[in-house]
């Protein structure tokens, strides 16, 4: 089923909560509002015409340019983004879901942005969301066991954030 | 009888005090058996590496001390002696030290009653077979204590599995041992051995089809009860690191190791006596060459020596086949080991028991005309005749 039809199907179902789309890119993507994530995910998987049953991976991308010099010609506006790469084994088509989030919840440094979990739709999201939480710092509401998966339990900070400063020492081991 | 004769000779001829003579003879016998056990363990460590090499398309040790790396076992021995055998902190020190020696003693006791040739036995027990089966059951204590006293969960798991397996495999092993004893009519190993004199046809394994199958069940149970090859759950590296042997190192580890090889060699020796004619070759070479006591005492002794080589070679074959199994087959799971024992070995052994009983009832003389009447005792060496017969 071609990407345009998918977009119309979503727009017809969710109206203005489908924020944007780009169908000509190498990987065509559709941007949705964070609040609509759970319903869109369930629709994409359960709708017989769509049948997106395979979630490849969830990626957290941090759009901010910490050092002043390069900040001038920074091509994107400052925000945080989640990418959901989906594909359907039944129909063979692929789709990228894009969700834009504020870098910090309510602009307060240290408050992680919040979004609904999709681990009840695709079981593979369980570990992927834990990894995004661990490395990029996004909280997934409703996740059964949101703990760090790659870094140690008591690690401070989220390494893949652009403005991440590694702690001076960890358990007595100098890190820098 | 032999050792009493030597002891009396010492007391009369050299006037040694009684206890020194008897003690000396007993000590010599123990040292000989210990020597056999040590030599067997050393030979088999070297052989295991060579057999493993050949099966895995490589050479095995070649440069250790000469052409075929025969010094490998000595090298291992020195390494094990030099290695520091440490005891974990929360281990139960006394039991930890005791465990390997219980295993070793149990494996050693089996050799006491195992005849290497007609009359060549340390302690000619009338209940030889029964004693071996009883003592073989003790070896599991060493493993249980070793596993428990190491204090770690992993070795406890290993000890549990080993105990469950060995204790449950004693039942079919006992059954398989009883069948040839029933046919032979006696528990005395020397008598059973002598009964299978003459051509290979007289071996108990060809006595009747049921006994033939019993031999293979016996082989299976031996492999399981000495914890080898497909049944080596206790030291399953992939799951339990090294089972109950995890915390052992250095000399203590090598004592466990010798106990395992010793009991392997002893059980295959027992198998060869019960089923494969013990010290009698398929062709009665000794009788053909006239090496019997009737001609001359020394010739008779040479015939026995030939018999001893036969016995050692058969036991050697048993151990070699165990090694062959080890390097080709994967390992069974604990519940599969238990089901093979309880659902296959025990009923089959019982059926063979009933079969053999009916067979001996129906054909007392046996199918084939026997060269020597069943049960007739071979002419024992003159000096071992009971004291009364010798007119004291």
């Amino acid at each position, binding site marked *: 089923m071609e990407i345009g039809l998918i977009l119309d199907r979503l727009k017809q179902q969710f109206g203005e909560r489908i924020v944007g789309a780009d169908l000509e*890119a190498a*990987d065509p993507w559709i941007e949705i509002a964070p609040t609509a994530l759970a319903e869109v995910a369930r629709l994409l998987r359960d709708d017989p015409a769509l049948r997106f*049953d395979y979630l490849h*991976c969830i*990626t957290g991308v941090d759009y901010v340019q910490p050092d002043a010099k390069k900040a001038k010609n920074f091509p994107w506006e400052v925000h945080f983004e989640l*990418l959901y790469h989906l594909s359907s084994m039944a129909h063979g088509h692929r789709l990228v879901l894009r969700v834009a989030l504020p870098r910090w919840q309510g602009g307060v440094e240290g408050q992680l942005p919040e979004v609904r979990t999709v681990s009840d739709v695709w079981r593979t999201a369980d570990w992927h969301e834990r990894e995004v939480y661990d490395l990029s710092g996004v909280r997934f509401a409703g996740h059964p066991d949101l703990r760090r998966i790659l870094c140690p339990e008591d690690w401070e900070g989220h390494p893949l954030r652009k403005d991440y400063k590694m702690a001076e020492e960890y358990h007595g081991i100098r890190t820098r | 009888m032999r050792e009493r004769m030597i002891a009396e000779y010492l007391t009369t001829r050299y006037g040694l005090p009684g206890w020194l003579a008897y003690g000396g003879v007993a000590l010599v016998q123990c040292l000989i058996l210990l020597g056999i056990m040590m030599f067997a363990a050393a030979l088999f460590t070297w052989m295991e590496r060579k057999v493993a090499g050949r099966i895995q398309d490589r050479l095995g040790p070649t440069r250790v001390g000469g052409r075929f790396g025969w010094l490998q076992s000595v090298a291992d021995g020195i390494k094990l002696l030099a290695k520091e055998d440490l005891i974990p902190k929360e281990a139960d020190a006394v039991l930890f030290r005791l465990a390997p020696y219980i295993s070793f003693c149990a494996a050693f006791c089996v050799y006491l009653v195992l005849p290497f040739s007609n009359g060549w036995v340390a302690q000619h027990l009338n209940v030889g077979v029964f004693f071996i089966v009883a003592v073989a059951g003790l070896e599991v204590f060493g493993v249980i204590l070793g596993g428990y006293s190491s204090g770690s*969960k992993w070795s406890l798991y290993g000890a549990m599995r080993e105990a469950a397996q060995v204790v449950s495999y004693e039942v079919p092993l006992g059954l398989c041992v009883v069948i040839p004893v029933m046919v032979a009519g006696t528990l005395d190993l020397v008598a059973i051995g002598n009964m299978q004199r003459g051509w290979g046809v007289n071996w108990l394994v060809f006595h009747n089809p049921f006994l033939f199958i019993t031999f293979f069940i016996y082989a299976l149970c031996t492999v399981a009860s000495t914890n080898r090859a497909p049944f080596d759950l206790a030291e399953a590296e992939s799951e339990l690191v090294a089972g109950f042997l995890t915390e052992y190192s250095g000399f203590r580890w090598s004592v466990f190791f010798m106990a395992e090889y010793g009991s392997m060699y002893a059980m295959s020796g027992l198998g060869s006596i019960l089923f494969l004619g013990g010290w009698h070759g398929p062709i009665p070479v000794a009788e053909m060459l006239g090496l019997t006591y009737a001609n001359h005492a020394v010739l008779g002794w040479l015939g026995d020596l030939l018999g001893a080589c036969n016995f050692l070679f058969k036991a050697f074959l048993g151990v070699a086949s165990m090694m062959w199994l080890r390097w080709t087959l*994967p*390992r069974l799971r604990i519940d599969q080991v238990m089901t093979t024992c309880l659902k296959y070995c025990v009923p089959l052994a019982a059926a063979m028991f009933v079969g053999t009983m009916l067979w001996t009832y129906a054909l007392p003389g046996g199918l084939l005309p026997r060269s020597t009447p069943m049960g007739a005792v071979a002419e024992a060496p003159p000096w071992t005749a009971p004291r009364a017969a010798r007119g004291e």
Partner: protein
Amino acid sequence: MAVERVDPELVEFDVRTDEMLINMGPQHPSTHGVLRLVLRTDGEVVSSVVPHIGYLHRCAEKIGENVSPRQWIPYTDRMDYLAGMNMNLGWAMTVEKLMGLEVSEKTRHVRVMVCELNRIASHLVAAGTYGLDLGSFTPFLYCFREREKILNLFEAVCGARLTYSYIVPGGLIADLPPGWLEACERCLSELEAVVPELHAVLTSNEIFIRRTAGVGVLSPEMAIDYGCSGPVLRGSGVKWDLRRDGQPSVAGMYEDYRFEVIAQAGGSYPRDQEYPPVPPAAVLGDCWHRFYVRMLEVVQSIGLVRQAMEKYRRSADAVSEPIKITQKLPRGEAYLETEAPKGQMGFLVIGDGTAIPWRVRARSSSFCNLSVLPEISRGCLLADIPAILGSLDIVLGEIDR
């Protein structure tokens, strides 16, 4: 969320005597690297498995944001260190997709040849260590003897035996040395003689079947739901292989090759008549099927390499030159998955116009294959854990990145 929240699973009860909490790993002979499994066992029966990963985490993705794509190739080698070539291929094609590059015919055939050889080497390691997990030592040595020959071939091609960095964005660092094709043909014919031996020692061995058939059954729906891929997915009967169903550039690499996906459809595997039959005890999706799929893929890869050698001899054009280190990346995103031996290895690159990518992401196949372990090993025996783990064939370098 309080940082000092201790995972309840790790608290061991001393009152409860039948439940035992056992740590398998991170240093354990059969966990294929630094993986820690916390098992809650009741006697021999395992009631729950909690994998703990992250011991090999080097955060290669953070480094990817500071180096140019060509400089990041050595990091992809060290993700699945048993299949370096396939990792390089994945990253190289992702960057080529972003930049819209096309590689020459000759390069494509060399890439197919080299990647299929690496798949054989990886499956040989999987088969060998699986034999070790189940207790039989001998097949391990047979497999590694054959793998050595393949590593010698790779050494001739790119100088390294494990971390090749041979396939780079834009093409290859060097063409095949002269005389390499004959050596490769000799190695393949010797390998073809060993495969029946492996079948005899492992696949049709009664004890091996009894240890693996019906153990760790993974249903097709659960496999797709957990995002499994590769032999784990095909072992559950899902006919999905990126070499045929992948994105246009990946499927394009294999379009003129005779190739069919190895998965049990309608009760039979393609070309399974020459190989041991599926035992009655084997259930679709169990450890035995995953192992069997790998063994068939080894033979299939031998065929693919032979076809690639033929096409390489016929192709006239030269090997295409790799991109410069300071090559500017266009603005945009590209995500591409290739069929690595362990499963689908995905790479995402976001360019921002400079030579350094803005964000790099590696999607690991073993990461998803491992996430299914707690599900399929509930209620199995302690001795089954290495059997199931070995059949998933995971590599910790790839999981932890």
